[in-house]
């Protein structure tokens, strides 16, 4: 947490709302584990590797959607 500097402040509302996101977060972590496993084993065809990466990105998107729905605002990109 030290590398997060001044942002490591308590935000009780935000922290409590993360509990509702646990299923989506679990799915994202699981999808990321599959990506890492596919890369490590090197047994997966490139096409299939793209598939697991796509699943991970969609899981990340689902988390983003739920974060926004629970009151978070995403980063702005000019």
């Amino acid at each position, binding site marked *: *947490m030290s590398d*997060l*500097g001044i*942002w*490591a*402040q*308590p*935000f009780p*509302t*935000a*922290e409590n*709302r*993360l*509990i509702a996101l*646990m299923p989506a*977060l*679990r799915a*994202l*972590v699981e999808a*990321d584990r599959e990506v890492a496993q596919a890369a490590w084993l090197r047994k997966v065809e490139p*096409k299939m590797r*793209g*598939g697991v990466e*796509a699943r*991970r*990105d*969609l899981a*990340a*998107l*689902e*988390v*983003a*959607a739920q*974060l*926004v*729905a*629970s*009151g*978070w*605002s*995403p*980063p*702005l*990109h*000019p």
Partner: protein
Amino acid sequence: MRSRRNGSRYARGSWRRKGVVRAAFESALTLCRMTVMTASRHCGQSASGFRVTSDVISSSFRLPWLAGTPGKDSCAIMSVVETQSLFTPDDGLLEALPVLRQLVRADYLLTRADYVGDVGPDRRRDLEDNFMHARRTVTARLIASGWSAPGSVLHPRRRSRRVNWARSTDE
């Protein structure tokens, strides 16, 4: 007759409302950008990818016309959005994966302890502290990546980004 004081109070409220509406619109727009970027990246690989993605948008923002959009139509939507340059590079969630893993692990240990029921009160307290610490770390990570927590003011990095962007446009 409305007093001057009431008028100014109304004006302040109006500005606040405008700010809320603008923030909500920016959130929706940014999420749509992220969604379209993800969908376009995987369009060639997975036919169902965009359907899933459009369903997420549709359910989040009540846009029924996007739900279950079949392949051709979704590509048409994407090309429209693409021509308007509505793309964004990153949402910071993949950067946050290490701390998200810690949070999922802490949640798993706490849930298992409650389910099995073979841990003492001290150990239970440790697991709970661990879970709360992980939640705080994830919140801090998201804020450091540019996300704004519910009910908080705009992130300074977001403000400075806006200022920099305006300056670069002026120059």
